């Protein structure tokens, strides 16, 4: 594992609120190989976005801070870099695409200009060259009529096109790693399918490493190589997509796979995880999932489970993992 291209170790994010300091990302560690796509899953509020923003040291509020953690790219600990040095990590090493392209694109600047600005800044190209490159990038992400479209403003684009423009913008600085924060949650399934395909193509063509955040296991199953499951700011389980989906060991992972509405006849009840996700100021002690966990044992409420390697390139944090039934994934209902 240590030879991985991108390593995150014990990344922690704190927030200071009216009720005190709370950890919202708690010692998250994972690795990412070159050309690998890692799916970061977990329900809303589990800390996916914060973890990724912390990688760029771009926390949206002064109340948030990063008290610890190491991030190594090619062995270099970038977290330790001074602010000025760290800026070269943004864009150049790690690019980011956001969930809501409508607000993350500058509304008053033409799309082409925004891309060209990034190109010029990172590559020092001339204005003309940068503009040409912008059109090229728009072509790459599959925007029809890119020359014309580069003169458009974000609000003139449809949701899917905006997300493509956002990707083009991230690619403008030629990053090694792309973080995609729920880039398809707001989109239609048909458009989502297009975007997923585009990301795959980019990975294949450029050897991009991608961290893909979502809470849709279906999307992960389609796109990713490995999956990292977060709950309450902590990693529950990491592993290869197939083994993890086929054989979830953490009860939360198992719950998630079971919740997918795909299987089952009309009118039949869905499997659910009882209870509600915890809030940051009222995190359960011990294992954070224990109040909702059917497998919970005494220790769960008291002790935080260690995050251990359980073989098969897989790590797990659970006192009482689901017994492997070794059944395959639920069958597709209407195939």
């Amino acid at each position, binding site marked *: 594992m240590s030879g991985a291209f991108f390593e995150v170790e014990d990344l922690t994010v704190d927030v200071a609120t009216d009720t005190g300091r709370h950890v919202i990302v708690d010692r998250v560690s994972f690795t990412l190989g070159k050309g690998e796509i890692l799916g970061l899953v977990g329900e809303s509020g589990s800390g996916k976005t914060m973890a990724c923003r912390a990688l*760029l040291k*771009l926390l*949206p*509020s002064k109340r948030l801070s990063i008290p610890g953690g190491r991030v190594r790219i090619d062995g270099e600990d970038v977290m330790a870099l001074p602010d000025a040095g760290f*800026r*070269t*990590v*943004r*864009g*150049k090493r790690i*690019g*980011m695409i*956001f969930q*809501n392209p409508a*607000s*993350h*694109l*500058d*509304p*008053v*600047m033409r799309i082409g200009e925004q891309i060209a*600005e*990034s190109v010029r*800044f*990172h590559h020092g190209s001339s204005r003309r060259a940068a503009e040409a490159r912008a059109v090229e990038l728009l072509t790459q992400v599959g925007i029809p009529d890119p020359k014309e479209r580069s003169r458009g*403003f974000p*609000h*003139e684009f449809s949701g899917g096109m905006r997300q493509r423009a*956002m990707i083009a*913008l*991230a690619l*403008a*600085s030629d990053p090694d790693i792309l973080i995609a924060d729920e880039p398809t949650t707001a989109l239609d399934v048909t458009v989502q399918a297009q975007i997923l395909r585009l990301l795959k193509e980019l990975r294949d063509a450029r050897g991009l490493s991608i961290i893909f955040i979502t809470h849709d296991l279906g999307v992960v199953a389609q796109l990713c190589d490995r999956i990292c499951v977060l709950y309450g700011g902590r990693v529950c389980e990491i592993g290869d997509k197939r083994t993890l989906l086929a054989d979830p060991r953490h009860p939360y992972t198992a719950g998630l796979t079971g919740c997918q509405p795909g299987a089952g006849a009309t009118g039949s009840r869905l499997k659910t995880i009882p209870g509600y996700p915890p809030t940051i100021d009222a995190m359960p002690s011990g294992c954070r999932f224990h109040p909702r966990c059917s497998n919970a044992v005494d220790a769960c409420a008291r002790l935080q489970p260690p995050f251990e390697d359980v073989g098969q390139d897989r790590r797990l944090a659970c006192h009482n993992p689901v017994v492997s039934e070794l059944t395959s994934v639920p069958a597709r209902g209407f195939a």
Partner: protein
Amino acid sequence: MHRYRFVFYRPLQLLPVLVGISIITFVLVHSIPGDPARILLGTRATPEALANIRAQFGLDEPIWVQYFDFVKNLFHGEMGRSILYKVDVIGLILGRLEPTLVLVFGSVILSLIITIPLATLAAGHRGGAIDHAVRMISTGGLGMPAFWLGIMLIILFSVKLGLFPVSGYGQSVADKLHHMVLPCLTIALSLSAVLTRSLRASLLAEMESDAAMAARARGLPEHIVFRRHVLPNSLIPTLNLLAVNIGWLISGTVVVESVFAIPGMGQLLIRAIFTRDYMVVQGVAMLFALASVLTNFLADILTVVLDPRVTL
């Protein structure tokens, strides 16, 4: 292009506004007690002389007749005569237009020159000492009445330092500009107090906006993010605020014009009000209204130009 179509139809909507203002002004001005004839004649007034003056200026007609006469004159490009100066009102007003225009424009520009760096500083150091200092400066600017501030500026810059003329408007262009520095500064200081607060707030919002965050994520350095993505977006609400306040701003020139002895419309208006020089009040009020309406129109155009999302 359809975003700009309001440029064609909006002026038509302005017409009723101007008509409304003309009627209200007319009625209000005429309903203020005080008789221009009596004022003109002073202590020596006699009934005959009063009647004579009233007849001369048509003041003995019912008010609606006077209003229609006014409208009729307007269609002939006239606005009646000033009771005090006994000359045509339009000519009188045009003669006073330039200093006020210069004063208003100068103040707006100067206030932006003051506002942008102050707001930037304050927003950049939110909650810090600098932020509080800026707030102190701007509330100070707001709290100091123009008549007081103007005198202080004169004492400091003109009498003590001899940098600027004490008062007046000057002859040549350079001379005029030299004369207008202190008056413009007086208005700009209080205007920028309001603008700084607004700009600081929108800067803060824009600095934390998703778009700015995304620009940082692309590795753009803070100064570029600020100049290209934060400032342009923040200026729009501030410019609109400025436009809305233009009416007040123009009214505010009255005091500054009298402190600095600038022969502008504000002074004309005040004296006309005090002497009940109806047609002059009417004319100046209409012109102020027109200016305010046009400025808002301009601000709308500017907003549409600056913000491609806006359609009016």
